[in-house]
């Protein structure tokens, strides 16, 4: 690592007495955890042992040692490096309290320098907890009746909360895909390995013909939600939808975008994830500008697709199609998304309003590349979506009758 190019910058005296060294390492472990690096306590023991072997003479070696033992996720590397720099610079031989504990504040956002890269986001309880709790209480007594056909945009806060809980009850079953694993079955191909095995067990006599089929697994879902300003009236409800989806179906990857694309899968999976994500959305708004769907999809295709588009997922794009970017780029990137998925559904909340026609440039460019164009403006439309997904079975574009 180039920042360690000028070596023996002694971070600790070579003959540092062991208890102090151990103490420092434990403290560093705590700082890492506080900064949000997923370290594992057991590895601390290894780290202490390893430092003994490697020595504390070279900063670069020490960084490599601690990094290889305490970090096991690529996305944690920048955090680790920041924490290492702060800790082992500010941290002379004597004082070990001041700068660390400022770092040790809970769940601090550490800004990333590389633009375009997936952002790291903190998980912090929102300030409007009280408001949420109040709304929660309302819903709990079911005093609010929610119309299934009322537009989300017209919901009151209490209705939103009640609707949110109704959303959590929808069961999402996004069809199945065939895996390459075999499983025993009554009908299907003859299970040759088992035929042979049984044959041998029974001394060469063939008594029955066991059969097998390819096992089926739920199809993964990839959700790309537009959270730009024009989607504001729907964002909150749609994030709840995304969070319910993530918790009910097994393999869901979710992303939000306005001008930039951010992965929020991990946050969504947590209880109350939608609240964390709405903070993310606010942050995204801070970046300003309108939606650039094509650019967001481009980032998705180059940075994330290889990792989240395995096994032919169903892709859901939620957007009103108001696009400030280049429609040609949008068309091209969308075509690429479609090639790698089994089914591409565009959910547009505006499709629910009478008289809406998809005339925006973005929507026009998109229509040629999607399998289904569906509304997402009220509870009924989301229930329809759930039913639609369930009916889909193992369909892929190209081999389907229209559903």
């Amino acid at each position: 690592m180039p920042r360690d190019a000028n070596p023996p910058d002694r971070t600790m005296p070579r003959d540092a007495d062991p208890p102090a060294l151990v103490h420092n390492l434990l403290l560093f472990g705590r700082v890492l955890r506080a900064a949000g690096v997923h370290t594992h306590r057991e590895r601390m023991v290894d780290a202490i042992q390893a430092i003994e072997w490697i020595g504390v003479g070279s900063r670069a070696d020490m960084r490599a040692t601690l990094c290889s033992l305490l970090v096991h996720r690529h996305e944690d590397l920048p955090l680790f490096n920041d924490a290492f720099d702060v800790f082992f610079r500010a941290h002379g031989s004597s004082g070990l309290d001041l700068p660390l504990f400022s770092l040790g504040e809970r769940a601090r956002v550490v800004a990333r320098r590389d633009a375009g890269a997936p952002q790291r986001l903190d998980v912090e309880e929102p300030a409007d907890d009280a408001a949420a709790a109040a709304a929660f209480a309302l819903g709990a007594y079911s005093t609010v009746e929610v119309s299934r056909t009322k537009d989300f945009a017209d919901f009151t806060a209490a209705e939103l909360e009640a609707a949110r809980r109704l959303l959590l009850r929808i069961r999402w079953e996004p069809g199945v895909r065939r895996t390459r694993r075999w499983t025993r079955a009554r009908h299907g191909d003859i299970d040759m390995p088992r035929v042979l095995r049984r044959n041998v067990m029974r001394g060469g006599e063939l008594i029955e013909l066991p059969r097998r089929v390819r096992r089926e697994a739920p199809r993964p879902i990839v959700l790309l939600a537009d959270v730009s300003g024009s989607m504001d009236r729907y964002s909150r409800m749609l994030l709840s939808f995304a969070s319910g989806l993530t918790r009910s179906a097994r393999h869901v990857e979710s992303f939000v975008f306005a001008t930039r694309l951010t992965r929020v899968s991990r946050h969504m999976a947590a209880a109350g994830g939608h609240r964390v994500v709405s903070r993310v959305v606010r942050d995204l708004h801070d970046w300003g500008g309108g939606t650039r769907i094509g650019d967001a999809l481009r980032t998705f295709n180059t940075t994330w697709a290889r990792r989240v588009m395995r096994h032919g997922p169903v892709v859901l794009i939620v957007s009103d199609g108001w696009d400030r970017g280049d429609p040609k780029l949008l068309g091209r990137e969308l075509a690429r998304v479609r090639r790698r998925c089994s089914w591409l559904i565009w959910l547009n909340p505006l499709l629910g309003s009478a008289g809406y026609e998809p005339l925006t440039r973005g929507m026009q460019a998109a229509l040629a590349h999607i399998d289904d164009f569906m509304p997402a403006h009220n509870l009924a439309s989301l229930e329809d979506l759930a039913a639609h997904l369930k009916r889909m079975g193992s369909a892929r574009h190209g081999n389907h009758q229209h559903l």
Partner: protein
Amino acid sequence: MSRAPLSIPASVDALQQALGGEQYIAERGLAVPIYLALRLRRPLFLEGEAGVGKTEVAKVLAAALKTSLIRLQCYEGLDVSQAVYEWNYPRQLLEIRMIEADSGLDRAAATKELFTEAFLIKRPLLRALEETRERAPVLLIDEIDRADEEFEGYLLEFLSDFQVTIPELGTIRAVEPPIVIITSNRTREVHDALKRRCVYSWIPYPDFDKEYRIVTSKVPGASERLARQVTAFVQELRTADLYKAAGISETLDWAAALVALDRDVLDAGVIDETLGLLLKNQEDIDSVRGERVGTILARATA
């Protein structure tokens, strides 16, 4: 059996030297984790984009430690019969027929005879355990991200016990744990439980100096000037916004191709003609070919 236990380099420097002896350039950031994995006897988990030389680490390490390399290539649906062991049923059936023809079948005796090592097909994980009777081998579990989660679960168990139980034969244990190297292209997240057991190392694309040294040592026919230009161009190309960046082996293939074409210097024309060796995605090639090649070349040779 005479056992020659594995000797581990005494320090990171010694390890670097041993790897260097196999024409492999390992900077400290990589040598330290390898060394720690050896000392701690933990699996080494190497992650990085395709083509940064992860598999190479295992090959070179086996050579440097003078031990054998056993490789398990992962794929979706990989199961115990392909990863650990399988009985050779066709041979067993033949054997049954032969016993029948010979002497009439004595069931108990036949079963005993049929389920012996002679009829066992040993797959990489079992072979790695057995090999430790001679000397701990390097066990390369390549592209774990391609296997499904079921296999990861099995692997977790294997890595903690280093033993395999075959109901008909008994339990086979490692005399000492093999040196395990797991690689992942990160096409999906590998479960934390597995990664936590390992010494983790992220391998980035090499910087200019490292890649230049790799080119000169692997493509000796390339002139110094060509090697410099090739490396600079590839480095510059990796910063372009592409679906699939060129890996080290692409650099080497390209350099070798240019040597075969008797090229001593890069120009836009020859790059256009040979771009297919560097970029394997048609859209990437289309977006770079022509004008952009010139710009990138200008920046690279600046």
